[in-house]
């Protein structure tokens, strides 16, 4: 049962954080950081299995692998951004955390540009061209 281990790691980390908070605040912050890293590392391993399932499903449905790849990249950017923003917020730098989140959003949008332009192309093809047959 991995979930029990994760919960216990969270509890242990909180206890160590409370002990260290008053004597050495920097070490307490490092405890927070390493706890996030440990738990995320375990979760990412499990996500790998889910992603294998997704790719096999996409292969069966003969979806262009480019789209799935873009979505996976977006999810990865979201995870990294959230880790960085939360750790920065815990350290008390809320403004920097919001900038990190902004950067994550911008990069996600940048990755989505090819998909958005493809959608726009399809919509433009649906609209009748300006032949003015009805005028």
């Amino acid at each position, binding site marked *: 049962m*991995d979930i029990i*281990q994760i919960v*216990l*790691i969270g509890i*242990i*980390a909180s206890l*160590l954080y409370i*002990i*260290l908070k008053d*004597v*050495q605040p*920097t*070490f*307490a912050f*490092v*405890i927070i*950081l*390493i*706890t996030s*890293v*440990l738990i*995320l*590392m*375990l979760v*990412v*391993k499990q*996500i*790998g299995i889910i*992603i294998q399932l997704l790719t096999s499903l996409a292969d069966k449905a003969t979806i262009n692998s480019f789209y799935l*790849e873009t979505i*996976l*990249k977006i*999810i*990865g*950017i979201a*995870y*990294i951004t959230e880790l960085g923003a939360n750790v920065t917020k815990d350290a008390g730098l809320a403004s920097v955390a919001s900038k990190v989140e902004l950067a994550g959003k911008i990069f996600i949008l940048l990755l989505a540009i090819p998909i958005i332009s493809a959608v726009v192309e399809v919509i433009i093809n649906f609209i009748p061209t300006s032949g003015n047959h009805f005028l």
Partner: protein
Amino acid sequence: MLIDATILFQIAGIGIITALIHTVLKQVGKEDIAQFVSLVGFIIVLVIVIHHLSDLFQQIKSVFLLQGL
């Protein structure tokens, strides 16, 4: 799939020992050496943490096909 929680105790232990040495050196009157000990302890912990952080980032990169970025 077990993760090693020893690193948590390791870091907390280094922190407590550093705080102890800091307090003792402050009581003796060597403020500058106390600050130096604090700094060295923090650097040791930072090396461990950065090692794990790069490990995590490599894993995320390989899982989410982010090689191109």
